[in-house]
């Protein structure tokens, strides 16, 4: 059970993020929930690539031994940048929604209810 701990952490992080996205009406909180899910998925990718007792896959000053899987790390790099981009755009929309309605609560906006 204890060796499954990283995966369970991932499930919990994603679950919390999803809960926030579904039940909170504050738009900033929704963006944070999305970021949380994204962190969960990135963590999941990284845990998939771990090999027991392995070092980072970099040959500079490498002292021998096995290496972790490099592909998940590369995928995570890509996914992080995509996450930055989406978060920036979502926040820009929140700024504009605030400008128009004077509120960042989804209940005050006309079409974001529910």
């Amino acid at each position: 059970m204890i060796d499954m701990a990283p995966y369970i952490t991932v499930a919990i992080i994603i679950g919390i993020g999803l809960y926030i996205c579904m039940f909170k009406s504050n738009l900033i909180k929704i963006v944070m929930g999305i970021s949380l899910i994204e962190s969960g998925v990135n963590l999941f990718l990284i845990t998939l690539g771990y090999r027991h007792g392995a070092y980072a896959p970099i040959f500079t000053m490498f002292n021998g031994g096995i290496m972790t899987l490099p592909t998940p790390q590369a995928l995570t790099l890509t996914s992080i940048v995509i996450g930055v981009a989406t978060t920036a755009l979502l926040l820009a929309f929140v700024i504009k929604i605030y400008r128009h309605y004077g509120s960042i609560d989804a209940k005050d906006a006309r079409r974001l209810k529910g």
Partner: protein
Amino acid sequence: MSFMDQLPILIIAVPLLGAFLTPILGMMSKKLPRYTSTLFLAVSALLVALMAFEVYGGDGTPIIYTLGSSDPTPFRIVLEIDAFSVFMAIIMAGVSLAVSIYSWSFTDKYTGQDKFYTLILLVVVGSYGMTLTGDLFNLFVFFEISSIALSGLVAFRMNRGESFEAAFKYMMYSTLSGLFLLFAIALLYSQYGVLNIALLAQGITADGFTPLNKVVLALLIGDFAMKAGAVPLHMPSPYAYSESPGGISTLFMAASQAGLYGLFRASFTLFGGAISSMGYAAVGWIVIILGVLSMFIGVTMALVQKDVKRLMAYHCISQTGYILLGVGVGIAVLGDATAMDRYGKAAIEGGLFHTINNALYKGLLFLTAGAMFYATGTRNLNEMRGLGHNMKITTMFFLIGAIAISGIPPSNGFSSKLLIYESVFQFNPALSAIAMFVSVLTLASFVKVFYSAFLGPKMKDKEIKEVPSSMIFGMAILVAAILAFSLFPGLVLDTLIKPAVEALLRAWPIPGGV
């Protein structure tokens, strides 16, 4: 290597180059981006046409292009292009060209035109990238490009709060579905250690439906159904369609087709082997149920709308349902060779034919709705009347689109719907009856729109003029395609659709042939 060998990547690189150049060109002159972006789109459409000749002229094996190496290997990213990929790319090429020409006049009174055309090019890049790739993670990257660019475009009209709400909502849903798509990809990677679609399909076929693979398939269907705008994940689509400016609704609809592409690719190429070897009809039934729900809920919601673009958006959801119904029947009979030959292939053909028809007439209807908004400044059907007096060309175009979407013979909508009715009837008569009923409701809804917007006395408070010629020209491209498809449905079916269906049913070869 010759020019033809580099064709697959050039289809993506040309609009990408255009997108990177557009901000610089926009600094030089305000009107330059609109012409250069159309030029880049035209060049890439030409490349897609060349690609189509090559793929459709071949023996049916996909063209494989390995990035960064001369020898094909599944460890690198590959582009794997069969007739179905090119089929979807053709839809995007035609529609995007019409939209960019249409937008010339439409965007005249707005600022930020260079960004607008950059984003149009990027939506096209996203769709091409999704349809041409042979690597699952790469599909995710282009999925994100397409959704981010689309939500940027939805927020183009910045004087209204509603457009930002719609953009936020669409962005939120598409980001979530993108993240779960990534999660599904990670689950596949954890089992097979590769990302190439052909290699993954081989592994999945060998393993069958393990619990993990069931979760993956459920996530993939959910994600792509959201992108395609199918019920029950259709919530952001009507808002986004109705708030996007003019031609962007059409582009939006064409980009949603990439979601359908992903859905079909996942259920045929990726999981088709497992489904057919285990005779697993449940997947097909899930897609059918999604389709029937979309059809029915879409059209009933459309009947009560006052906003002309909202109404058309709900019809778009309803038409997506037809496609899912047709192809879902094909997925359900994947394991049954006799049923597949008897009606399964016809059902998929009907679904794919409806995909391209839907893109054409729905695209045309969205463009006419944009023209109505351009002329009257409102989208409310109760405030519009008598547009037929002064906007004769738009009225004619609207009629053509409405006839086609209602499936009245001899339109192209009729031929694809007939194909779906006939084949679905042999699978389950009740589904066919629902589809026909929905078609009648569609007709009723469009009669209502035509009656209230185009007939009746002229609007008194406003001088209504026909829209500028570039908007007419953009619509005329789609009208010409609709007329051609209506006149020669058999020819289109044989040359364009049937090879695509064959390609969809065939397993992809592994690059480098392991």
